[in-house]
């Protein structure tokens, strides 16, 4: 059963029927989606064209930090869904130069701290020391950011929190994160505004909150 058939079935289950013209519209969406998909895009896109902005050793640090933040457990983790490559694309195309510069400086700082505290590069540390160092940077950064007024302007978010933000974003919008860790229904078909937690799907957090974007 392809997705188109699945959607039609969902509409049928919900007691609705899709008229011939509605089906035609659905087909147009697929055609438009395919045309759109012809432009470069990917799930968690790889670095794409042009020179990469992270060296191999910098990439290794990003991967190690992302892995600590969302490891593989009984479900996939950040590395399984390609978070490091996602972070690199985001740095390259979504963030301005100033954020990139701060990110790379913070990354270096983590590595030099590893050297000064333990005499070894970050990625060479045993896991418990890596985790402790990430925790140390992380707790200091969230402590500092919590003190700031709730505004998004000029946050100057440091390396560790940019990595966390992007790991959360990349992971929970990935298919595995959205469907295996959280729960996701593409076409809910109905709305129940107030129900027992256990009756809301499988009771886990929805991957996409309706938020206030209406």
């Amino acid at each position, binding site marked *: 059963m392809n997705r188109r058939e699945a959607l039609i079935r969902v509409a049928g289950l919900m007691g609705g029927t899709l*008229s011939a013209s509605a089906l035609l519209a659905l087909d147009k969406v697929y055609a438009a989606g395919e045309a759109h998909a012809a432009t470069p895009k990917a799930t968690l896109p790889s670095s794409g064209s042009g020179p990469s902005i992270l060296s191999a050793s910098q990439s290794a640090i990003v991967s190690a930090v992302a892995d600590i933040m969302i490891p593989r457990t009984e479900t996939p983790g950040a590395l399984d869904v390609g978070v490091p490559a996602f972070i690199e694309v985001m740095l390259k195309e979504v963030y301005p130069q100033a954020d990139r510069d701060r990110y790379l400086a913070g990354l270096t700082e983590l590595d030099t701290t590893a050297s000064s505290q333990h005499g070894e590069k970050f990625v060479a540390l045993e896991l418990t020391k890596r*985790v402790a160092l990430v925790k140390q940077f992380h707790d200091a950064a969230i402590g500092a950011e919590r003190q700031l007024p709730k505004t998004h302007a000029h946050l100057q978010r440091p390396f560790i929190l940019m990595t966390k933000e992007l790991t959360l974003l990349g992971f929970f919008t990935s298919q595995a994160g959205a469907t295996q860790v959280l729960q*996701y229904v593409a076409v809910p078909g*109905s*709305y*129940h505004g*107030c129900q*027992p937690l256990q009756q809301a799907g499988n009771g886990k957090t*929805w991957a996409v909150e309706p*938020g206030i974007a209406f």
Partner: protein
Amino acid sequence: MGGNSYDAIVVGTGITGGWAAKELTEKGLKTLVLDRGRMVKHGEYPTALLNPWELPYGNRPTQEDLRHQPVAARTGYVNAQASKHWFVDELDNPYIEKQRFDWVRGYQVGGRSITWGRQSYRWSQMDFEGNARDGIAVDWPIRYDDLSPWYDHVESFIGVSGSAESLPQLPDGKFLPPMELTCVEKDFKKTVADKFGRAVIIGRTAHLTAPLAHSPQRGTCQFRNMCIRGCPFGAYFSSLTSTLPAAEKTGNMTLRPNSIVYELIYDVKQGRATGVRVLDAESGAHTEYFARVIFLCASTFGSTFILLNSTSNRFPNGFGNDSGELGCNVMDHHLEVGASALVPGFEDRYYSGRRPNGFYVPRYRNVGKDKRDYLRGFGYQGSAGRADWPSLLHDDALGAELKKKATEPGPWHIHLGGFGETLPYHENRVTLDHSRKDKFGLPVLAFDAGLKQNELRMRKDMAHDAAEMLTAAGYRDVRTYDNVVGLGLGIHEMGSARMGRDPKTSVLNAWNQVHACKNVYVTDGACMTSAACQNPSLTYMALTARAANHAVDELKHMNL
């Protein structure tokens, strides 16, 4: 009729253009419908079915996107990867901001009816009487009773989900079944009713919560909340799902995309407009089209641009601008002010489906016996839901603990955002600037408009009252916010060719006709004499349907 002659011309295919096209063609007029943007048909929504993992960049705009849409980016949402293609490239379509003015535009067939917020509220008698009562600006030339049957007509056709509440300041309409409030929203509703005597109602929104017999091409809402991408089910009202198909069905519509109307043709001997001049956005060719009646529905400032750019010996300062009011009285709803809170309890309650709607707190300030140190009032839109993974950014947890926390719905939060009425100020205006040209060689608009004391005083209440209600409900961490950003961000722009009783002080009459040239109607937001605080699109639609039927009658009686 010759090749370029029609009974009617409609400029624009958004919320109002679609309605003009439907009404005029259904009454038998051969109608040319022009849009400056590309062709889009219902179903041609490239991102509508993409899952989160199929959108690049985590759905955020890239630096290159921001370079092309810096104003749209001020909204914080419209130029996400899922919806950026519905908004203009601002490098090609520049304008001037003497004061910051957020002009968010969508140039395509369907216009911004594809991306609108869908909240649909009637205005009340209080709103139409406001200017006369307060002695400001000019009086509306119509009252609620003039529009009431047209609200009925529009709601019955587009489908509006909502609850009847018998509130004099927010008249009930023809409603489809309402959507449901969340547990916390129900709790808040009770507190606000008990302690303040104010209403909290489910939003009234142009979604089908039940089928409409007259529109079998439309399905019911599937609660995906991806509306801004275009709905493949046709569940919310847009020109593409509703009015343009109705117009097409008559066989009387000729729809021509890529057609930039830049000037009205005025015949001084006949004392009427005979047609429009069109620049083809693709070929650059200039063509004239002719008709007995012309509807400008090109969006508030789109229509204002055409009028300002249509100068002649008769109208040296812009078409129909004998009053000097054309381009003046620019309004929007002022927002970015309200409060949020953390809601203790309700941990065992959740919801299913993504409701494309929130709750609404109808205006209560300066209503009845309430009197404030400012004129008019505001409403709130808001919602309550449970925190999810983005809130974990500032959580101590990392690793397996972070993953586990993410699977457990977080605490409930509630948010109230105000929508305040902006008064019509003559000096809040938009003008044509010939010193700068867009990529088509046309002059650009320059905005010089901002909030004044009345709005700033109102905003104090908008933040204070929100916090007071949240606190009274027993919620914690109540935080107010008030980001004064200026006008435009409400995307409810209006007023620049206002209706009025007197040609000396207004551009349009009670039927949306240009006072000085009766076969030109302007029925988009430009016509508004005041702003009220309700979302305006439903009123634009009702005014358009009323004006179109008036035009048909006038043509029949040979009055145009």
